[in-house]
């Protein structure tokens, strides 16, 4: 009897220990968030003791490593936005088109072939897209528009756009597939063509999912690093010409880190300030994506 009791107790302690360990594991994800916010913002606060906030947000010159130092982030911000807009122009129509095709038109057999192909496209490392942009897209651009520079925003943004097509496609398709078939059948029963069902019934009904897919994809484009580091250039100048060399926020961070940055220098703090801004932008966009889904979701 005594032994059995002992065994039971040991069992209970074991169960309790395991639950505690698992809870600790789960806590690591919270710690990660806290650590991200803390590291980014503690360095950023020190950064703003040395650089005025007004200069940072409104200055048009970015030369943090060269004397005279200027810390206007606008050139980097505009560069990032150019990449994001260019990528959207590619990814949104192609991604949405693929999603409508896969969800409404494609026969099962074709779907089975195309979906894995799109997954391969999504699984290709961004460094490979960067290589592709520099050695394939840029030469084509230069052929048609000879004034294109070797490093340019257009080529990088096309590559980023291609990279996020599968993301737009699969998230939008999920939203369309979630619409009950009865709604589709109802529209067909009224004599609609597939085109009418897709554009007047399915897309409007899935709009919240599609919208949030777009926002998430753009957020991903803003955070994309290696493509722009390879193909977009390293010139933080304020320009709106996509055929010129630019620098994005992420491109700057990589570029500085390739050198040996010492803890406590202004370069080190600058990287964290830019990183904090990048984090805030993508975080806000991810929240917006979630709000779109929650707010405009049609319940069936």
């Amino acid at each position, binding site marked *: 009897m005594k032994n059995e009791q002992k065994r039971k107790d040991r069992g209970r302690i074991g169960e309790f220990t395991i639950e505690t360990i698992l809870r600790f594991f*789960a806590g690591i994800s919270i710690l990660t968030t806290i650590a991200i916010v803390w590291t980014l913002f503690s360095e950023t606060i020190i950064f703003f003791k040395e650089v005025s906030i007004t200069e940072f947000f409104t200055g048009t010159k970015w030369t943090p490593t060269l004397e005279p130092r200027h810390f206007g982030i606008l050139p980097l911000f505009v560069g990032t936005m150019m990449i994001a807009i260019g990528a959207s122009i590619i990814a949104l129509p192609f991604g949405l088109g*693929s999603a409508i095709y896969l969800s409404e038109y494609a026969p099962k057999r074709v779907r089975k072939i195309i979906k894995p192909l799109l997954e391969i496209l999504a*699984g290709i490392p961004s*460094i490979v897209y960067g290589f592709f942009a520099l*050695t394939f897209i840029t030469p084509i651009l230069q052929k048609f528009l000879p004034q294109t520079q070797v490093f340019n925003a257009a080529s990088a943004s096309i590559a980023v756009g291609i990279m996020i097509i599968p993301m737009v496609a699969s998230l939008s398709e999920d939203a369309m597939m979630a619409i009950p078939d009865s709604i589709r059948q109802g529209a067909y029963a009224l004599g609609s063509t597939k085109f009418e069902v897709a554009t007047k019934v399915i897309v409007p009904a899935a709009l919240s999912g599609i919208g949030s897919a777009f926002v998430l994809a753009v957020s991903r484009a803003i955070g994309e690093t290696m493509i722009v580091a390879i193909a977009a250039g390293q010139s933080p100048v304020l320009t709106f010409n996509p055929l010129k060399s630019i620098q994005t926020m*992420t491109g700057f961070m990589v570029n500085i*880190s390739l050198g040996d940055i010492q803890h406590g220098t202004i370069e080190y703090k600058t990287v964290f300030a830019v990183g904090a801004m990048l984090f805030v932008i993508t*975080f806000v966009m991810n929240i917006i994506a979630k709000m779109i889904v929650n707010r405009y979701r049609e319940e069936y």
Partner: protein
Amino acid sequence: MEVRTEQNIYKQKKSRNIRIRKAKNIIFYSIILGATGFGILVLGLLLYQILKTGLAWLSIDFIMNMPSRFPQKAGIKSALAGSIWVISLTALFSFPLGVGTALYLEEYSQKGTWLNKLLQLNISNLAGVPSIVYGMLGLAVFVKMLQFERSILSGALTLTLLILPVIIVASQEAIRSVPETLKQGSFALGVTKWQTITGVVLPYALPGILTGSILAISRAMGEAAPLIMVGAAGYVAFLPSSPLDSFTVLPIQIFNWTSRPQEEFKNIAAAGIIVLMALLLFANGAAVMLRNKYQNRMD
């Protein structure tokens, strides 16, 4: 001779209307078919471009040589070793952490409580954080604060945090798919929760967990940006022998070669990409095979 009665005119109008609508449908169909084809066309072009540029430079020497200033002599030995080190450690850290967190969320924590909701929200937000930001976290915490320096360990820990949300979400889905009846049956035999988890839940969920984890780890294999932030070097001419050694990985070596102006280096960059993509293909193939093998056994 057809009589142009009102009815006939109506019929003609109607058929014209239908024809236009059908034509619209066909035009739309061609457009979206083209849109879908575009992605696949680009995939083909990309593979062609890389094979065309790099295949001639791929050789045993290329895999067995250290990097060099001369493209003819340069190889990826140290980068390949670094990648294997980093990825092995990342897998070692991230798999138990990810599966453990998923188990906690699905089997232990009460659904709908604030803690569960907070964890869930937090994980989905972490999944959207750009990878370079994880690099900054790694730089501040692992490299500087914990003094791991620019080592394999710092890199692997950084990548672990990066892919953790992906593994957690995939494992959660797999664990959720375990039928309640199986669990109840196990409990009815009088076994404890943990015994149910190891004896029933995990074996059933394993294919899903493994597939998700392998995909996440292969994503880590292609990451360069966070490792550049934690200070992986561009040029390493020795093989790392402990987790505290400095290192480089394949994607960074490729980046380094791509950034050089000489054409030859672009060629060996392409050869490096072929090796990287072959590794990824191997990992994904393994994931698919594992899934198929275990799925058959379970069904």
